């Protein structure tokens, strides 16, 4: 039995109500401009001066960059906790609640809301989660409900 096997967390090891706290990521103006230049070239993401006058009231990240940063926090957490994931079939709902400004630092709480076993043993199990991404003032910037596909414990794998 390898050391890696012992530390793995499978679908069977996850409980409803469990909360995973992610690490944190800080985003600066250069990150915002880099993402926006490639994917969301609108003035309030590209130009700090114009951004002051916009609906957002400051130089802020593309909402899709915030989603991508959430993904990074999630992926790093799954890796940290040795949870083998096969990705996600989608997101039931997501709301952008507050802009993320240059210099903001983000972290997230991932709460397990439901678990569903796969019908076929070789398929991953389903884990419903609510994810709350917060800034350094602990204000929610996005909230979402999504489903993660997590491997079942292989037959014979030690606990």
């Amino acid at each position, binding site marked *: 039995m390898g050391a890696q096997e012992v530390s793995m967390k499978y679908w069977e090891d996850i409980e409803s109500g469990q909360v995973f706290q992610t690490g944190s990521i800080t985003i600066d103006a250069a990150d915002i401009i880099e993402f926006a230049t490639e*994917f*969301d070239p*609108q003035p309030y993401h590209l130009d700090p001066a*114009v951004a002051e006058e916009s609906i957002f009231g400051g130089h802020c990240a593309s909402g899709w960059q915030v989603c991508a*940063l959430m*993904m990074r926090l999630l992926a790093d957490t799954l890796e940290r906790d040795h949870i083998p994931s096969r990705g996600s079939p*989608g997101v039931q*709902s*997501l709301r*952008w609640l507050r802009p993320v400004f240059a210099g903001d630092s983000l972290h997230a709480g991932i709460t397990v809301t439901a678990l569903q076993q796969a019908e076929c043993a070789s398929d991953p199990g389903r884990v419903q989660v609510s994810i709350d991404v917060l800034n350094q003032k602990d204000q929610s910037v996005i909230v979402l409900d999504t489903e993660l596909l997590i491997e079942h414990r292989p037959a014979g794998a030690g606990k």
Partner: protein
Amino acid sequence: MSETFFRTRWFEDIPVGEFHVFGNHTFGEKEIIEFGKKYAPQAMHVDVDAAREGPTQGLVASGWHVCAVWMKLMVTYMERYATGVRDGRRNGAGIGFRNMRWIKAVRPGHNVTYTYEIIEKPEKVIRGKWGIIRSRNEGYNQYGELVFSFEIDILAERKPLVAGE
């Protein structure tokens, strides 16, 4: 016919049922890996060899990458009609989405065509001046298969009431 100002229309002037095929994009291996390394560092997005041996049987683009390209093409498309508009003030800010489904893998070399249809204008006024435009957005690969779909709510400014109206 008057010129279309896609981004300067008032909420009231945007019709339910409007449909656009607004762009397409071929996903390259390099960009899939680059996006994956930054935002979704999992074997299926960043490691060609490991991905081939894994459940996806090859490299696949992150679902968020497919979304980011949706945004890129949408902005490009809107800008084409946004003569003279510098800040996209009258519409553009997204407040949320529902039913995001990543249905089929997007692999290196796949070309995704993106479509946009306005499906609803919920009767809700936000901060006294914004209405909500709800659209269904879809992506189809080069085989005509639906690969991704979602419904997004975007704010559009309502026509100001003129005194005496």
